């Protein structure tokens, strides 16, 4: 089944649906793990954004597409491929 990154990264947390039978301790533990999950997710998203902005993800996709590994030659080929696209990318005022 196809899934975009959205569902993987930004899946909604199901909190507040705690069973009435849960003890206060269990609820606290659940909230703590939910917070940890949120923080981890936040970090994951931030890292993904930075990797995309800084073309690291584009390089990974290039390696995947050309079935090559991380090397000086493959990065040179990647930069050559992106040369015209990068040069035409406007930066706003």
């Amino acid at each position: 089944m196809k899934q975009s990154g959205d569902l993987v990264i930004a899946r909604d947390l199901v909190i507040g649906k705690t069973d009435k039978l849960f003890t206060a301790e269990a609820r606290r533990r659940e909230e703590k793990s939910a917070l940890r999950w949120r923080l981890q997710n936040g970090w994951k998203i931030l890292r993904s954004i930075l990797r995309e902005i800084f073309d690291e993800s584009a390089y990974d996709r290039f390696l995947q597409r050309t079935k090559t590994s991380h090397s000086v030659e493959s990065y040179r080929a990647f930069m050559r491929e992106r040369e015209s696209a990068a040069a035409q990318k406007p930066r706003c005022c």
Partner: protein
Amino acid sequence: MKLGKILLWIAVAAAGALALATLAWHRGEAISAMWLVVAALCSYALGYRFYSKFVAAKVLTLDAMRATPAERLENGRDFVRTNKWVVFGHHFAAIAGPGPLVGPVLAAQFGYLPGTLWILVGAVFGGCVQDFVILLFSVRRDGKSLGQMARDEISKTAGTVAFISVISILVILLAVVALIIVNALKDSPWGAFTIGMTIPIALLMGIYLRYLRPGRVLEASILGFLCVMLAIFGGKWVSVSSHAAAFTLTGTTLAVLIIVYGFAASALPVWLLLAPRDYLSTFVKLGTIAILALGIVLVRPTLQMPALTRFIDGSGPVFAGNLFPFAFITIACGAISGFHALISSGTTPKMIAREQQTRMVGYGAMMCESFVGIMAIIAACTLQPGTYLAVNSGAGMVGGTPVAAVAAINNWGFPVTADQMATLAQNVGEKTLFFRTGGAPAFALGMAKIFSDSLGGTAVMAIWYHFAIMFEALFILTVLDAGTRVGRFMLQDALGHIWKPLGRTSWYPSIIATSSLMVGAWGYFLWQGVRDPLGGINSLWPIFGICNQLLAAVALCVATTIIVKLGRARYMWVTLAPLAWLGAVTFSAAWHKVFDPNPLIGLLSHARQLAAGPAVAGLQRRIFNDQIDAAVCGLLIVLVSVIVLESALQWISVISGRKQATTQEAPFVATAYAEEL
């Protein structure tokens, strides 16, 4: 909507209204900048929740089942389905430039109120809508550019006019941003050294990325950032050493150096200078904007500038012109910027995974940029008005000496003394802060004040000031080299239709010729700005604002035409209203700039005044410069009038039923990701 949510939104609306009312009615006493922050955040929240949702549902009818080009044409290169937050960050990094920092600082001469209201209203009803609709329409046309959409949806003439408008705005934009750097760095050995060092740092990053650690861009950017920080501290040492003279440069020397730099950046391989500088600048940009927001919230500075100043009558020393229309062209980015339409129809539409994400990316990212503009207003307005005016006024406007400037500014009712200015200059490690037009030094001062109040006090104010100058200059140099290169590619593309080899982007004679053309064009305007006794910004920034808003008018013409062709003419006011406002603003501003009888505003009357005055060196050149600026304004107005007329004819034909409406949308293809919905 549940009762709790209704009450929440009523509370948000009430808080926003209270903050705006406080800002609008407060007179006489200093007021906390937090009112600005609250007014802005509440306006954005309401605009996003209600207005953008209305536009998405009724006007654009976003379709979750429709496959986007990132899905249909996915190739792992340009077309890639990307997480919405990632596209959001990518888009924001591309649209946020020096414009929302500089424009609001300049417009602060009218007081904090006009700029704030324009930024909020302009963004919610104009800029955000423009970015959103252009992004969606580009997504539905396989990521076509604004020029292509103008050609396809309006006419071939419209496409050509859009092309000329884009080239013109690029030329004026690059000249203006280069002038800002020149004015910030002249006679400043600390600043000149730090900014000069960013060039070898970028080159080193390029070599590091290509040969040492290929592809580790984040790592290289962090190292680059650390080197830049070292350069800031090194600049302090240089400024008091025997080498200071070598870095104490005049405006004309700096202009020549920047022109040479622009040419080199356009002709050198992308990996060596352009790409690493872009990475470094983005890294610094995102970090500094976040720190500034945090600083404002922590310090909660007080606004020293009044809500309105006497300069709303057009007699301002920062730039001449009445509140209407000049406040609205001075602040472009932050409220509405035509340049954004180029980004919204560039790389972003090729990354959108689902149509609904265009709302968050297009509308939401522009809201964030608008908030950057609000932060710039806060930074400028936390300065004492007298200090603000002493820094931002050209020597020709307030007298050529600090004593004369202080007297003039005090006469206007804004107290400032030469001693205060000398102490401030000493605190930030500069010889003088008088006549530093362009907005960047005033913004850096405000930012340094906010930062030093929260961290380190006066002792580190100089470091914060030069950090802010470095941050702005890095921004601007990135715009300069990327813009020159984009202009070069556009010229090559156009000239290739005349003679094929000129269109080859790797043919060196063509690279040299087109780079020279582009650099020569913006270099000319830069040179005239540097030699202008009024500071250059006085005449060039309004022309840049007019160009930028005219480009927005082109984008809104395209959007309105598509809305009408889609059979939703009853909603065409969504784009037509901002278009009408921009038409009123830009056409009247251009009229004033060309024909106003006041020589401080009208270019032709200024040329006449010069001709009638005593013969001095360079008189003919200055007269010619005024005439050229007037011709550029006039030409752009005529060109955009053509697009508006052509668009209006299309709307009338379609609405009256005389013409069958056909749009160039890509055919509907159902998404393969339906199960995610």
